[in-house]
Each structure stands twice: as C-alpha cells, then as structure tokens.
C-alpha cells in the first residue's frame, strides 16, 4: 500500500526530469543533415569584385570556415568582433556568404565594422543558402580539405563557441 502511494510521486519526478532536460535544449537548433556530407557546390560572384567568382573547388585542400552573414542581420553584429579577432589569428580562411543582402549595404557594413573575411561571396537570392540548409543568419560551416562539412554553428559564434567547439575541431582537421 505504501509503495503504491509513491507511484504518483515517481511519475511526477519523471515528468520534472523530462521537462528539465527539455529546458536545456534549444528548439531553434535543428541538427543539420549535411554534417559529414560533401558541401553543396556553388559558384558565386565575389562581393568586392563582382566580376570574379569563387567556386567550391577553389577551396579544395584547405580547412575553411563558411560564415553566412548579412548587413540586415542583428545577431551578426554581436558575432562580428569575435570574427575580427579570430581572423587576426590567421588560423584558417574565413569565407563570408553574404546572404540575401544588397551589395552597397554589405560593402558599407564591412567598411564600417571591419572585414574579417578572406573574401565574401554574394548569394543575393539565397539559393546557395537553401542548398546549405541555412534558416537563420548567422550560421557557420566548418569544411575540411576534402570539401566535406564537418561542423555547423547555428547563431552567432561567441568566444565560448570558438574556444570549445570550433578551435579543437579545426586543429584536428588541420592535422589530418
């Protein structure tokens, strides 16, 4: 009889445990099915020199970061100083994917805030963004020398994300 009385309490504790786990998850972070898959191909005009293109194949053999950004993106402003700092360390090429932006706005934004990118490419209609499964800016893809996506950061890169998530993975990939 005593044991039976404890059943509601047990159910309650289980429920609280599940809800507690739920609180630590971020429903906006949808795991990308592209991890460890070949990065979708692209050939896009560069932001600074629109007559020149950058293709995925141009990055072959390098470990690099594809950072999706836009001048209209608020969270990108938060991420920007972190990227600038990171770029100064020259750890790897950072390619900016200027997503659904206006060219003058994008150029002005880089002029004002500084340009952390090795170069930026322009995805004005967001088609390459769809291929990469971009659904919120900023997003960043870590791509290895064989052109596979190895890690994705959804939302701004914070110093913590950089230190704990990105740098260790970059080291492993660069030593591979």
């Amino acid at each position, binding site marked *: 009889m005593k044991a039976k009385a404890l059943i509601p309490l047990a159910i309650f504790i289980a429920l609280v445990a599940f809800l507690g786990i739920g609180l630590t998850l971020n*429903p*906006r972070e*949808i*795991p*990308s*099915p*592209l991890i460890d898959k070949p990065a979708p191909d692209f050939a896009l005009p560069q932001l600074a020199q629109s007559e020149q293109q950058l293709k995925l194949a141009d990055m072959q053999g390098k470990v690099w970061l594809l950072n999706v950004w836009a001048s209209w993106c608020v969270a990108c402003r938060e991420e920007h100083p972190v990227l600038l700092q990171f770029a100064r360390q020259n750890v790897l090429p950072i390619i900016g994917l200027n997503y*659904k932006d206006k060219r003058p706005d994008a150029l002005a934004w880089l002029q004002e805030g500084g340009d952390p990118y090795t170069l930026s490419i322009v995805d004005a*209609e*967001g*088609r390459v*963004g*769809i*291929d*990469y*499964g971009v*659904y*919120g800016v900023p997003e960043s893809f870590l791509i290895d020398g064989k052109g596979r996506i190895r890690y994705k950061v959804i939302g701004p890169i914070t110093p913590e994300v950089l230190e704990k998530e990105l740098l260790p993975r970059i080291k492993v990939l660069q030593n591979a």
Partner: protein
Amino acid sequence: MARRFIGATFILLFAATALAATPDPVLEARVAKLTEELRCLVCQNQSIAESQADLATDLKRQVREMLAAGKSDQEIRDYMVERYGDFVLYDPPMKTQTLLLWLGPLLLMLGALGTFFWRLHHRDNRPATAAAPDEAALAHARALLAGKEEQT
C-alpha cells in the same frame, strides 16, 4: 487614329501582363498542397504555406520552380529533407530515431489500458454490504424520530 492606337496598345499590354500574372491553377494547387506539408524553420509552428517569413517565401519559390520543372512531390520532399532534415516534414518518416515519436502514444495507451484492466481484475469483488445496525443504535434512532415528532 493615334488615340485609338494608344488605346489598343494599352489593352494589349494589360492582356499581356494579365496573362503573365495568371498562375497555372493546377501548378498553384500542387504548390499549395506540398507547402502545407513542409514546416517553416524560422517560425516552427507554421507551414511554409502559411508563413510570411523570408525563408518560407524562398522555399515556396523553390517548390514552385521544381514542380514547374517536372519534379515529383516526393523528389521535392527529399530535396528539402536533404537540406533541412526530417524536421522540415510535418509528417516525419518512421525510422529508429523517430520510433519513440511514432510508438510513444501507442505505448502510453497500452500502459493505461493494462493498468485499467489489471485494477478491474484485482479489485475487491465482494459486494458492498451495509453494516447491520445493532439494536441499540436502532433504538436510539427510533427515539430520535419519535422525539422529532413530538416537537412538531
């Protein structure tokens, strides 16, 4: 003459724009049906069809273009899943990761039914019998009743 010419030009222009703007109703119906099944990733409780988010508009355009190019519904679903994962489907497929999602409600119901029948089977089956009143209590009751009658 010139005025008539201008008028005719306008009519032709209107006709041309109207034609260009009139969407193919069969195609639009397919677009509408398919985008109902796809979840908007920005506003996660809306379908791509309902959502006004920028990405949803782009994905609607993508669906329309792919359908117009002769792709089947399933090819388009696969295309979306390749990029955004099963999350993009309101009707996710059954596989090991989604097994609990699909079978969870069934398991809960089986559990509830099991408990229900177990309790039904094991409960006290003796008919509830009213405890026989003893004589003293009866006498007391009668006295009370009698007393009550006297008072009124």
